[in-house]
């Protein structure tokens, strides 16, 4: 595995920048940028009360979630409205409107329902990140035209209709397919493809961490693409989840990961990411790190 500060295939032309926008704010994801924290909390999966509220059309919990993620230092907010037995497209549109009314952070529109992604993209003010497409032909055909039409960026997962590959070589083959189809057939720019190398639970298989890190390094070397992952996945089923997530992200960052979908409320994990930014040279003179320290001192003093 070669480190992220080593040369990538595209080193000559500079790092790829994935540019996301709200109506008023721009966020850049790139290997020369501070790590992009995508707040994961606006998601009803596994939250019974929130699901019940959404089914009743009560979106007020979203406002609290937005506030908490913003306060925790999120750069982008992931919005997922995957509630069974509802009109997901309608809910997603309303959730995006609530989020955009509360914050100027760009949004990652998260759904496995194509119609919901489409409605979300229509409603969104700015340049969104679409979460997500896979290497399955059907999904590529349905989602990439939407990404192109709305001038968005897209998260792509290297799994196909047969399997979630457990070897990095197979994952890289699928990344190659995604890149080829997206750029050649749909005219999507390389910098608008964000690969999710599939971070799996380490508690279910002790080899998955290395497999994912090898995939990250491979994607970085061969294409220099930006990457993201569902950071909390890695610690599923384990005690001390925050500490595991806080170790995982700096490892992934050193291999070339440039963003993560994570819970920005957890200071332990966000701090680990910001410290890694500092150590990887993405926080000049540590001004951001020191600024955060001072802000906390001031908050504690009042």
């Amino acid at each position: 595995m070669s480190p992220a500060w080593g040369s990538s295939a595209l080193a000559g032309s500079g790092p790829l920048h994935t540019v996301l926008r709200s109506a008023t704010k721009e966020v850049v994801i790139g290997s020369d940028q501070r790590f992009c924290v995508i707040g994961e909390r606006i998601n009803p999966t596994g939250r019974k009360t929130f699901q019940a509220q959404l089914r009743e059309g009560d979106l007020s919990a979203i406002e609290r979630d937005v506030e908490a993620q913003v306060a925790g230092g999120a750069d982008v907010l992931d919005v997922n409205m995957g509630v069974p037995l509802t009109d997901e497209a309608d809910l997603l549109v309303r959730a995006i409107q609530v989020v955009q009314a509360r914050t100027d952070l760009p949004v990652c529109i998260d759904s496995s329902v194509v119609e919901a992604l489409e409605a979300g993209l229509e409603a969104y003010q700015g340049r969104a990140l679409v979460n997500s497409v896979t290497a399955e032909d059907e999904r590529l055909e349905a989602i990439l035209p939407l990404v192109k039409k709305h001038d968005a960026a897209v998260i792509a997962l290297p799994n196909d209709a047969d399997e979630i590959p457990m070897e990095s070589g197979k994952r890289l083959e699928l990344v190659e397919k995604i890149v080829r189809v997206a750029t050649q057939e749909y005219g999507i720019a390389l910098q608008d493809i964000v690969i999710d190398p599939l971070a799996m639970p380490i508690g279910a298989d002790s080899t998955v961490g290395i497999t994912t890190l090898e995939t990250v390094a491979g994607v970085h070397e061969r294409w220099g693409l930006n990457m993201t992952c569902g950071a909390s996945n890695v610690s599923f089923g384990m005690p001390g989840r925050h500490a595991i997530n806080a170790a995982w992200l700096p490892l992934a960052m050193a291999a070339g990961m440039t963003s993560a979908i994570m819970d920005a409320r957890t200071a332990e994990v966000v701090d680990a990411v910001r410290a890694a930014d500092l150590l990887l040279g993405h926080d000049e003179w540590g001004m951001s790190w020191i600024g955060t320290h001072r802000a906390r001192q001031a908050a504690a003093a009042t």
Partner: protein
Amino acid sequence: MTPDEILQGLYDRTLVGNGPGVLELTHQALGMDMEPQVLLFDALIPALEEVGARFERGDFFVPEMLIAGKAMAGSMEVLRPLLADTGVQTVGTFLMGTVKGDVHDIGKNLVNIMLEGAGFEVIDLGVQVAPEKFVAAIEEHQPDVVGFSAFLTTTMPMFKANMNALEKAGIRDEVIVMVGGAPVTQEYADAVGADGYAADASATVKKAKALLADRRARTGAGVLA
């Protein structure tokens, strides 16, 4: 070692996931002419029940569940042919699969381990299982329970497609249907007409046993375990 010491050792070693140790004691027990069903029902199953209980309490974690399941599975490879010879019935047969369109299997595999740990015979059809494949497998294996797993909100509707396929094949009432997966809820299970839902591996075992006992009580068949 006395037979009681063997059983205690099997239980202890299964609980901590000591696979080689469990296998060694299994062979030792059989060498002493201990009955395979005694090893199963008095050591292995109770050990996995304790694993499930500790998991539910938050005292045990996913890897511990996995290695305990693997330790038991190693012993079962030796015991299964012997159990078949003695005509001992399993707790039940559970046919499992991730629905068509979905390739996620980590959760399903955990559930399989706990079901096997509880004495179920598990037939795993893998991922991307089409409705007609579920139907064919039900007709072939005649399981007591069939489990549909889905990880995505987009693949959950396959539950209903599977139910329809079962109806159409005229086998809906021959089998207990359970559904599960990260986005699945009790409401959704009810809406598709499933017989049961459980939120995790340990709860699935309890629910499957309860549904099976209920069905056997109604049909007058004997209830095991």
